[in-house]
């Protein structure tokens, strides 16, 4: 049954086989995507026609590699900018929320805490459409009453940022709160007794203590924003983010350029994930 009990050979072998199959299932699509990024063929499929890096560097009329593919490069740039602003916003608001729920007492705290958790259980599509509707309502209101036409309320860059921020901030709040729970508050009291004010204490002591959680949750926030599809789908304007742009290409047929982008994404995200894991281990 378990490692301390005698197990039959068939049991062990069967279990190992299951795990091998499971990991095969887990990694097959990613491996195939990576390998076919280097196939010297017009289509992302076998047979193998030889190794090439033209889908990265090529600049021929029938074979434009990712490094020369302006549309895809631009969408990567858009996604990076969205993710940057989402990270800044969610980390600052999430840290405020962590302080609010861990260190302050006020009426309706339970209710507000529940509200803060709710974005996790609302499907991303619903978040997208409700933010879209509300911004549209606000836009119409401003136009009718003050004849103001505000770009922020139309689908586009900032609406995508706000839509993603609305649920990623919850995640940051949970991660930072978990670390703040472990904080020894006698350190704060000591500093207060020595004449520091509350903000000096937070700045010099508590935030220093929270730094690993803030950096870690910021990295996760960046990645989640960079890869978000469901919420973004409804809020995107003329500037498509990378997932939206890839989706449109995959839906209408595909070229190995998509494999090349996927390859870069896989390398980038696994490096980030491993780095995150390494630093959180080291921290403990």
């Amino acid at each position, binding site marked *: *049954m378990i*490692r*301390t*009990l005698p197990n039959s050979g068939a049991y*062990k072998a069967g*279990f190992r086989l*299951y*795990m091998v199959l*499971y990991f095969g299932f*887990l990694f*097959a*699509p*990613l491996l*195939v*995507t990576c390998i076919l990024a280097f196939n010297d063929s017009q*289509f*992302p499929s*076998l047979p193998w026609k030889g190794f090439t890096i033209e889908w990265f560097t090529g600049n021929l009329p029938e074979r434009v590699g990712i490094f020369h593919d302006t549309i895809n490069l631009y969408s990567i740039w858009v996604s990076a900018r969205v993710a940057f602003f989402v990270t800044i916003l969610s980390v*600052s*608001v999430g840290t405020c*929320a962590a302080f*609010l729920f861990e260190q*302050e007492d006020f009426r309706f705290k339970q209710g*507000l805490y*529940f*509200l*803060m*958790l709710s974005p*996790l*259980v609302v*499907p991303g*599509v*619903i*978040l997208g*459409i*409700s*933010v*879209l*509707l*509300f911004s*549209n*309502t606000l836009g119409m209101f401003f136009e009718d009453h003050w004849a103001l036409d505000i770009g922020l309320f139309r689908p586009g860059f900032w609406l995508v940022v706000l*839509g993603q*921020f609305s649920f990623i901030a919850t995640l940051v709040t949970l991660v930072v709160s978990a670390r703040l729970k472990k904080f020894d508050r006698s350190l704060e009291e000591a500093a207060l007794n020595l004449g520091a004010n*509350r903000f000096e204490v937070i700045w010099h002591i508590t935030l220093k203590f929270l730094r690993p959680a803030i950096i870690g949750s910021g990295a996760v926030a960046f990645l989640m924003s960079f*890869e978000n*599809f*469901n919420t973004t*789908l*409804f809020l995107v304007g003329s500037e498509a983010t990378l*997932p939206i742009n*890839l*989706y449109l290409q*995959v839906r209408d047929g*595909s070229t190995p350029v*998509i494999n090349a982008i996927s390859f870069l*994404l896989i390398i980038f*995200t*696994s490096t980030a*994930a491993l780095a995150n894991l390494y630093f959180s281990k080291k921290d403990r």
Partner: protein
Amino acid sequence: MKKGIRWAFVIFVTPVLLWLFLLIVLPHIDLLIMSFRIEDDFGNSTWSASNYLNFFKEPIYWLTFARTAAYSILVTVLTFIVALPVAFFITKVVDVRYKGFLTMLLLLPFWVSELVRVYGWMILLRESGVINHFLLKAGLLRQPVEMLYNDVTMVMGLVYTSMLFMVIPLISVLDSLDDSLIEAAYDLGANMWSILIKIIIPHSMPGIVSGAIVVFMLTLGNYLTPNLMGGKNSLWFTEQIYNQFIASFNWNQGSAFGFLLLLLSSLVIWIGLKLSGQKLSKVVK
């Protein structure tokens, strides 16, 4: 001193209230209001329940809804069946030295965008795909078979996508199961089946519930996988919402659909929490 503390409270509470009210509460109230309004040809809008009546009158709408719910339950059950042995192997069977490495390996694919993973399955399974290529080469097939765009493939894709959210809670809950309980049962002559039913499953219930809730919710709200892997004539409910919003530009009807989806997902989460007697704040951790 006292005043300083209140100032800190104001600084913490303002951004949080702005976030929760402007981006969560008011938009969802707006969603509810929009779903009860209709627009005539002249752009005048009035109150009406007809968006909801349409849902029940048109079989295509409520059939899609029921189908999406049923498939989401199926996906949740399948994910659990596949994930339990994996979690058990990692926590109880494999040499402790490899535990951390295997857990990390398990997480790795899920850091990659869902789109990339679905795309990987598409180039594996489609008519000109990799699996067909090997089956033809091996002489097992004479003609390539289209393995994409059917319900079986779509369910497999959804199980694949949501696997992580079942495996992780199961691993953490099995970690806390004392090995000696299983040893004792074994010494008393229990077979594998009764150990599973009487010890492992009851102990894992909190993990199973939180995993199931997250998997169900994510599957219900998924758009990419059903859209890219499912058949052309088998819609997912999120696709209906998308069609109303983007294709037909009927935002009122779309809002009603969105609200129904929200209702279903909240209801299932509520039932799950009630059945297991857990709190939401515990489950999300």
